[in-house]
């Protein structure tokens, strides 16, 4: 299957730290791809380069055939990102928050309202859509963050530690949403250090440590002879030191 996201020998230095040291990976449409690693491994930086927030120092990234360096706006049209930091505009309603991002994503004026209604219904947000965001719970805000990331219906969805600030119920909803998106043919990239989630959800994983890929492939293959992914992960990270 053709890769939706292709990262090739990516390098990135932030301040005095060389964060990425030649990362390569491929994520495909219709799968959940796990980007795993301990804190500080370079997962978030990798995602930020993929979605064009940061530029690569060396190597290349393309998303559905668009180079992040030369066609960043085309890449951003095709990517939706959900992070653990669920910042929303507090004085706008949930609906207004979503509509703002829909408009900025280039959705035609006549289409905005319909698209916003669709995501509100899909994420079951009708009960609080008109409330100001400052009065919403963390779980509700996370739904707003997801809604604004998917309102332009991007073919690539990236989740960066999306459940780290959420309770059990809200986390469950996020996981269900990722599975549903995969079923819709989206390329879902899931960055996490919660290996239990990754093992349950991901079709393929790449484990990175200190800016380098230490293992990659189908989840079962990476787990190999170990009892679970966590044992495999610890063993691989230890070997890489």
């Amino acid at each position: 299957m053709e890769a939706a996201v292709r990262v090739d020998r990516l390098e990135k230095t932030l301040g005095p730290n060389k964060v990425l040291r030649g990362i390569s990976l491929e994520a495909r449409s219709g799968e959940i791809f796990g980007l795993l690693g301990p804190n500080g491994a370079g997962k978030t930086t990798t995602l930020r380069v993929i979605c064009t927030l940061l530029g690569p120092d060396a190597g290349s990234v393309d998303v559905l055939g668009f180079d992040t360096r030369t066609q960043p706006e085309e890449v951003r049209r095709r990517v939706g990102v959900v992070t653990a930091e669920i910042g929303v505009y507090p004085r706008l309603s949930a609906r207004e928050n979503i509509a703002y991002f829909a408009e900025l994503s280039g959705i035609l004026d006549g289409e905005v309202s319909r698209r916003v209604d669709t995501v509100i219904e899909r994420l079951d947000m009708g009960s609080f859509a008109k409330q100001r965001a400052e009065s919403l719970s963390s779980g509700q805000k996370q739904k707003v963050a997801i809604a604004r990331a998917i309102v332009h219906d991007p073919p690539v969805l990236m989740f960066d530690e999306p459940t780290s600030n959420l309770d059990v119920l809200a986390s469950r909803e996020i996981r269900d949403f990722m599975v549903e998106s995969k079923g819709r043919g989206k390329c879902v990239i899931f960055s996490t250090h919660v290996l239990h989630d990754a093992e349950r959800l991901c079709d393929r994983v790449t484990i990175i440590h200190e800016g380098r890929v230490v293992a990659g492939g189908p989840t079962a293959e990476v787990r190999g002879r170990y009892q679970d992914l966590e044992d495999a992960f610890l063993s691989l990270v230890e070997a890489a030191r």
Partner: protein
Amino acid sequence: MKAGAIVFRKEMREILRDRRTLIAIGLAALATPLVLFVISQVSTRTVAQAYTVGYTGTMPAGLDVLFNATGLNLKLVDDPAEAAKQQVDIGIVFSDKGLDEYYDPTRQSAQIADIRLQAILSKYDAAKVAASLQAKGVDPSVLNPLPVSVHPLSSPAQAAGNSFLSFFLPYILITMSLTGGLSAALDTSAGERERKTLESLLLTPAPRGNILIGKILAVSVISLVAAIAAITSMLIALSQISFGVSQGEPAHIGLSPLAAGVMIWLAVLLAASFASLTIALGTLARNFRQGQAYATPLYFITIFPASIVLFIPDFNPSLAYYLIPILNAVLVLRDVIVHGTVAWTALAVTTLSLVVTGAVCFYAALRLFTREALLVRS
């Protein structure tokens, strides 16, 4: 530019729902007339207020009438020098040699009473001399060999009003152009970062320059509204306050249509420049509070040029001075208020200077807004 319009609409909606900004604008509009009312009440009371003169000795005949007519109440005291320290406003000792006056210059009431006393004594001396000369058959006009007739080219009351306005109007215009939109500027820059919404915003395909233009436009509009609201309320208040008498009628301060037009034009330029500058500073900051700390020095920068008109009222600079941002706006406004005409060359230089300043501030804000460090620094 569609993205700029979308951002502008959203920012305006947020600003209009932000109590901090609305309260700041409302307070400025209310505070200005209140301050002017207090100033006018104090000055009116000062003019009408009577002061006490403590005296000892025998007062020359007729002098007491002049004292009473000038708002100086006479009071017999044992020691005028001691009494002038606190008990009365000035102390006088009448003796054969003449008059000794005691007053404390650190007391404002003593200063005013002294001025009134000098005026009385001048009149009294002139009247006594004239009476003596007449008694000896000499025309008293010999004491005034060069009679002077004064013909003011404009109403002195109006001149005093214009002088007042030439300081206050630029001061309020500049201060409100800066502070009226400051909260909104920091909220849309440092606040965006603090709320963790910046990353999501920059993930949209909208060009960052257009996003920034939308933000600057929104802040400029709020600054402009704040400045015009404060000035309008000031002018309304001034129209109710009398600044002396001109041609038998109470003199009020008003702004000519020409001055109003120039003021609005300068307000637009200042608001756009300040919006770019404060957003640039806010983009440097990690949170709202840090943004406020960065913006604090701007208050001094704005107050200083307006003060020049107060302390050097006859400051007549060369054209080069009109290249200095903010000071040029103060000078142009002063010229149009005091003289009632616009020096078009000075206005053109001022416009060019403020447009260039705004462009430089916009460029700086854009550079800061598009650098990776904006997202990497937490």
